């Protein structure tokens, strides 16, 4: 069967990430930072792919969940981590990332249950609003630095953390989808009514995908916080969510390998894209429209249909 070796691949990937990370001091700083951005974007894109690609639910709030995870993780580190002894710091970091992810997942539950219970298309507008509300909350909350945000977060995110967690994300999403259980996500994507007639609870699957996706977005937010060392409410706006949506659409909804490729490419070319200014978003908008019209399966799927690959 398909994924007998999945666990072994996961462990190998994590091992490589950690070993490479040990030598990262020798790498050019700029390229190292870009590589870490790549890892973070892989986590974001693959987790959104579970929601949008595999399960077919349009969420515009992925950056919101990232913000929740990032702020919570950074706050935990700032309170407990900075003064802790050196050996405890990785543990505190891991704990902070997990708690950040869990809080993001709970936020996902609160947003997902009311909107996914009904017609799926409300999710787009609810998540859009959620992203805005999160911004307002962090902007007004003194605990989280209000408009200034959080500063002096320790730079703990390494290549090992980044790609290690990216590997875990790919593993979790891949294993979920490539199981009999996971066919349910794709069934809901294809035809909710037929799925229901087969005994699959569409709401449950949609909420599960949404919560797991939100969790990993939260973890990615934690990594992001400990990579940039500062967080401001403006960093997680609607456009960030759109960036992630474009990665998924470009890579091919439900095509994990394609989505990873798109995340890598879009991250590497983000600097030249940024030079375009507002035109960058015009380009993204055109990518969305043209792909939806001509290649809804994305750029990187060749003959393979959605669901056929992990």
């Amino acid at each position, binding site marked *: 069967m398909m994924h007998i070796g999945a666990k072994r691949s996961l462990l190998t990937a994590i091992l490589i990430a950690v070993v490479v990370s040990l030598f990262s001091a020798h790498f050019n700083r700029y390229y190292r930072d870009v590589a870490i951005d790549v890892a973070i974007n892989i986590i974001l894109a693959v987790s959104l792919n579970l929601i949008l690609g595999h399960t*077919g639910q*349009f969420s*515009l709030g992925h950056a919101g969940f990232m913000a929740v995870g990032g702020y919570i993780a950074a706050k935990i580190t700032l309170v407990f981590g900075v003064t802790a002894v050196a050996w405890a710091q990785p543990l505190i970091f891991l704990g902070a990332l997990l708690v950040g992810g869990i809080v993001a997942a709970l936020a996902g539950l609160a*947003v997902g249950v*009311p*909107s996914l*219970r*009904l017609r799926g*298309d*409300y999710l*787009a*507008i*609810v998540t*859009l*609003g*959620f992203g*805005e*509300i999160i911004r*307002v909350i962090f902007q*007004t909350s003194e605990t989280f630095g209000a408009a200034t945000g959080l500063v002096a977060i320790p730079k703990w995110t390494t290549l090992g953390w980044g790609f290690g967690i990216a590997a875990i994300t790919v593993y979790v999403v891949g294993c979920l989808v490539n199981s009999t259980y996971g066919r349910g996500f794709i069934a809901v994507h294809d035809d909710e*009514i037929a799925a229901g007639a087969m005994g699959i609870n569409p709401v449950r699957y949609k909420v599960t995908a949404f919560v797991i996706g939100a969790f990993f977005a939260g973890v990615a937010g934690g990594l992001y916080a400990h990579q940039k060392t500062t967080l401001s409410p403006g960093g997680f706006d609607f456009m960030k969510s*759109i960036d992630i*949506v474009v990665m998924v*659409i470009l890579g091919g909804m439900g095509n994990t390998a394609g989505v990873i490729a798109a995340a890598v490419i879009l991250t590497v070319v983000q600097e030249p894209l940024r030079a375009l200014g*507002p*035109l960058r*978003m*015009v380009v*993204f*908008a*055109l*990518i*969305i*429209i043209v792909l*939806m*019209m001509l290649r*809804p399966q994305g750029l990187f799927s060749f003959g393979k249909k959605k669901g056929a690959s992990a």
Partner: protein
Amino acid sequence: MHWLQQLTNGLALGSIYALIALGYTMVYGVLRFINFAHSDVLMLGAFSAFYLAPKMEAIFGPQSAIGALVIIVLAAAICAAIGILIELLAYRPLRKRPKLTVLITAIGVSLFIEFTCQHGAVFGAATKPFPKLLPTRELHFAGIEMASNDLLVLVLTAVLLVAMWFIVQRTKMGMAIRAVSFNEQAASLMGVNVNRVISFTFGLGSALAAVAGIFYAMRAPGIEPLMGVQPGIRAFIAAVLGGIGNLPGAALGGLLLGVLETVAGGIPGVSNYRDGIAFAILILILIFRPAGLLGKAMIEKV
């Protein structure tokens, strides 16, 4: 009579939401998807007026009523054409595709309009002051203070709502719109030209959005390419509140949301979270009354 003041302010804002919400709800009725670009049509309406104003001033003199009316009518016509064009180019080719595809495309169209307009060669990203189309006065009666513009907005909205009701309930095209909303396939079998109905719906909705955009701009500090996003989202929520697909519901939802927001904005402590109120309402309505205040549960064909 503080609360009465809030109420009138809220109604003025709410009637703008109502006009926008009508467009969302009509499109949702015939095509069953959220037309994200609707909020950008509203912005284009405001900008049309912005560029038409100096020309009309040259013809009709400053702040003349006829000039304002011509501006509004022309802006509505421009936006109707834009709305029809958006549907023709972006949504019609995807009519038979999964709804998710159309929904994503709609976001793409919305972003495309917003960021193209932000470019320096189009409108630019900076906020521009909106010209005074009419002389403004403060009206006083029964202790309430009201800007003449707000009163005008209220009256004009009421007139437009009645006109809408007439179009939908009393004309042949309105009947066709209702038929397509009820069952597209059956309607087309009965000889209704579905494409024409959908184009008309986009045109009508977009014209209303243009009027709403001008009214909104008259109350706002200025106009910029992203100005439609906030009222757009709120109007969509208003449409859900009233019952999506239901025209009187959209009007009611808009008025209600406007009043609630204005009242909440006046309460100290809550006013910080004013932006969150609309979403709190949306979540509550989805949990407790998903069909909306006036809507009936929709039945999906199997």
